[in-house]
């Protein structure tokens, strides 16, 4: 028996080396899943290659740049009011002494200045913050000798002219004690406030 084993050493050596090759072959043997993966990888490779060379597949085409790049800035709208030598601001007070001791039929005007502090032109409207026994009128320009035309102000906004962007304009406000004022008004004092709104208009 020993002799017969010693007589066939070859096959044992062959069996000893063959598993290594077989393992390699088994590892490299294409399975259906591996084959599908290889096909997918190949397809992806072709797509990537086609994508990289996409220019050559396009239609005739050309493009040019419209050099319109610019910074565009918006303007603004602002309105200040100033009486006499006072400071311009969002409100001003006209001293009541100008309108002291008025009698029925008297008309007294005072001038003030409106300034547009923005770039946009606007229309102006004026209204009284509260109704008054006195007739209050407003108009652009210096005060006339007589009474301003038009209806007296009420608490509803009424058109009072326009002002251009950055412009300054003189306005006149007139208070008139109606000639038909009742005796109850005699000796009374009435404060009034005028609200002037500016609304931007398209240039």
């Amino acid at each position: 028996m020993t002799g017969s084993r010693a007589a066939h050493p070859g096959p044992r050596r062959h069996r000893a080396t063959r598993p290594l090759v077989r393992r390699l072959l088994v590892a490299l043997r294409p399975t259906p899943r591996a084959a599908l993966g290889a096909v997918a990888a190949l397809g992806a490779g072709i797509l990537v290659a086609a994508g990289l060379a996409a220019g050559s597949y396009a239609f005739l085409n050309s493009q040019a740049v419209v050099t319109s790049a610019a910074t565009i800035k918006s303007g603004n709208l602002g309105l200040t009011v100033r009486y006499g030598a006072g400071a311009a601001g969002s409100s001003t007070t006209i001293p009541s002494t100008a309108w002291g001791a008025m009698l029925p039929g008297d008309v007294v005007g005072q001038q003030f200045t409106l300034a547009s502090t923005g770039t946009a032109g606007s229309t102006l409207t004026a209204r009284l913050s509260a109704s008054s026994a006195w007739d209050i009128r407003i108009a652009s320009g210096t005060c006339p000798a007589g009474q301003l035309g038009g209806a007296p102000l009420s608490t509803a906004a009424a058109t009072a002219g326009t002002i251009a962007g950055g412009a300054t304009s003189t306005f006149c406000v007139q208070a008139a004690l109606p000639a038909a004022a009742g005796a109850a008004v005699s000796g009374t004092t009435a404060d009034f406030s005028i609200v002037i709104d500016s609304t931007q208009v398209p240039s």
Partner: protein
Amino acid sequence: MNKLTKGAIATAAGVILLMGGAGTLASWNSSANAGSSQTITAGSLSVTAGAAGVWKSGSTTITPSSFRIVPGDTLTYTQTFNLVASGDNLLFTLAATPGAISAASAASADVALAAALTGSSTFSVAGSNIAASSSPNTYKVTTAGTTVVTVTMTVAFPYASANSTQLGAVSFGNGAVTVTQTQTP
């Protein structure tokens, strides 16, 4: 079979193979040139910018950096382009896209102004080298040559925009004009 016989057979086979390619052994034949040689030249399609454009507010030329836009304003930027097209059957579409509007900074006025402004673009074609086709913005080359395309970018600030848009700044980007060949007339 001895070597001599094998050699004889191989030689005979070689001779037969060689004779197979001999023209003189073919059937009667003749050939003539069909037509004469021709040069075939491909057409072309390209668009290039002309002179720098002009910004206007209405009909007044402006400098955007010093202009202050207010609600109700419409600014336009007009630039000409040279469209060179040749090709007997060349159809193409022409398109102009406006520049993008973006706030110059994160400031609320800039953001509000960028939201209020709208950009658009139009173009017009002058000349008879190309003719409008039945599809929108599609043209066909009638004569090879240059056609002037005038592109207008418009920035509109709607009237009655909010006060928050005052003193804002936005960046208006470059636009683009594109020509693309098409097969649909």
